[in-house]
């Protein structure tokens, strides 16, 4: 399913140093991402966002990252220095965050933010930068003339997320990591943004690692799903086979979603005292 492997993760662990002990947050996870759409699904505290930040080299003490292998396009991310990370973020790996109103610089207009992203990574004349900004905004479904002069607080949630997506894609990264990119949006916008993201990733032959707590929603937009629970990847399968997963945790996440069909019934819930990691609660 992945002709070119982009990301290789083997035995990635993240721990918090507190006092004299280490508390594990991510516990020796392994996976690969190629030019495909992979969902990393888990609930609050499962370690999925920390995993995204570890892949972007964004974790600082007291968080400690260890891995047997952490490679992007054959290069060892564990040996990257600050300069290499700056080059890599944006052109190689890009991260879209949850709430655009917090992730965009509040005192810069949209045009300035996109222009800055281009200037950091590429040497282009002004006219060429403008041309690329207009093309990129059109690709994410925005009219440049309407948004270029706006500040982040003047954007709606959906527009803000499109601007952030434009900013992250403008330098042509190979792998897009999106951490709960739609949880600040209403249901209709969620579908639009996920569909847009999945379409852009496909047409640019990029990889996508989509992090979410909503199993059923991401399943519609991804090829493969990895399920995270208490810092471990406990299940993984093609998105199309999710409904048939035999893992008890995946089954519960799949079946605890309310819908018109569950009206008048009690929804299945997690047994909070059980440990689902083993595969048998």
């Amino acid at each position, binding site marked *: 399913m992945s002709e070119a492997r982009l990301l290789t993760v083997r035995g990635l662990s993240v721990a918090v140093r507190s006092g004299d002990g280490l508390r594990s947050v991510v516990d020796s996870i392994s996976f690969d991402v190629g030019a495909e759409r992979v969902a990393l699904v888990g609930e609050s505290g499962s370690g999925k966002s920390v995993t995204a930040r570890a892949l972007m080299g964004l974790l600082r003490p007291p968080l400690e990252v260890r891995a047997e292998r952490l490679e992007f396009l054959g290069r060892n991310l564990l040996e990257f220095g600050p300069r290499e990370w700056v080059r890599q973020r944006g052109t190689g790996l890009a991260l879209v965050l949850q709430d655009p109103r917090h992730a965009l610089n509040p005192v810069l207009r949209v045009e300035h933010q996109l222009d800055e992203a281009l200037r950091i990574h590429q040497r282009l004349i002004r006219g060429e930068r403008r041309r690329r900004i207009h093309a990129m905004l059109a690709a994410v479904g925005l009219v440049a003339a309407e948004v270029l002069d706006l500040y982040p607080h003047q954007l709606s949630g959906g527009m803000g997320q499109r601007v952030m997506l434009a900013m992250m894609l403008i330098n042509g990264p190979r792998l897009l990591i999106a951490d709960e990119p739609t949880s600040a*949006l209403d249901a209709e916008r969620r579908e639009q943004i996920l569909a847009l993201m999945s379409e852009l990733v496909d047409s640019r032959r990029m990889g996508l690692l989509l992090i979410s707590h909503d199993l059923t929603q991401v399943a519609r937009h991804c090829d493969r799903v990895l399920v995270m629970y208490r810092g471990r990847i406990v299940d993984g399968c093609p998105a199309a086979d999710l409904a048939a997963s035999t893992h008890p945790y995946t089954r519960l*996440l799949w079946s605890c979603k309310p819908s018109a069909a569950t*009206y008048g019934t009690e*929804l299945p*819930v997690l047994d909070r005292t059980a440990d689902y990691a083993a595969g048998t609660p």
Partner: protein
Amino acid sequence: MSAVVGEDGGGGARKGQGGDVATDIVVDVESLSVSLPAAGVGGAARAVIRALDLKVRAGEVFGLIGASGCGKSTLLRVLAGVHRQWTGSIRLLNQGVAPGRVFVGVLRRAVQMIFQDPYASLHPLHTIERTLIEPLKILGESDPRSRVSRALDEVRLAPAIAQRYPHELSGGQRQRVAIARALLTRPALLLLDEPTSALDTSVQAEILNLLNEVRMEHSMTFVLVSHDMDVIGHMCDRAAVMREGRIERLMGRGEMR
């Protein structure tokens, strides 16, 4: 003001046995309009709700759904008496409500609200016990402490939670505290503003189960705001789709899928 008893009744809603609620219509709103001042200085007022009519029957779970900015949360805040600048006519539990005034009499305890973000709706510097005791003291209830421990028990929280602060609880636990707080005054009408949209799917399932359970137990009427059609479909007997401050259409069970 007019409260038309039993109008458009018989739609298959679950009937409540609500104690002091005499009529079938719990929420009766006629030509309600609300304008909010525009952002910035000197901006023109923006109409958020435009001549809206709404009737909610006793014992029913009524959903309000629509995109961001359609006015659904504002409508709920008007019904809760939080937003008081409006025109039109509102009767709640057969009591008239006047614009610009805080609720008086039975409505102060009979109408309660649960917010989207339970962290923002609990006082950060008060223990859970203090937060829960406050409404009981204001209402002059006897033996507030035992009421609090019973309330925590009802929402399946351990008694030790009473001595904790909101930041020490998970999102699901905080929403349970918010539900316990609302139930303390024995409301007949519970207004819920996106009560589970800040929660994980598995926690959402627990909270929706809990809400259905306490609703049956206390014969309450719910008005539930959500942008999630799945939540509305799971919970509601009827729902209204809102758009630009108006009710675009009403849905019965047959229209929900």
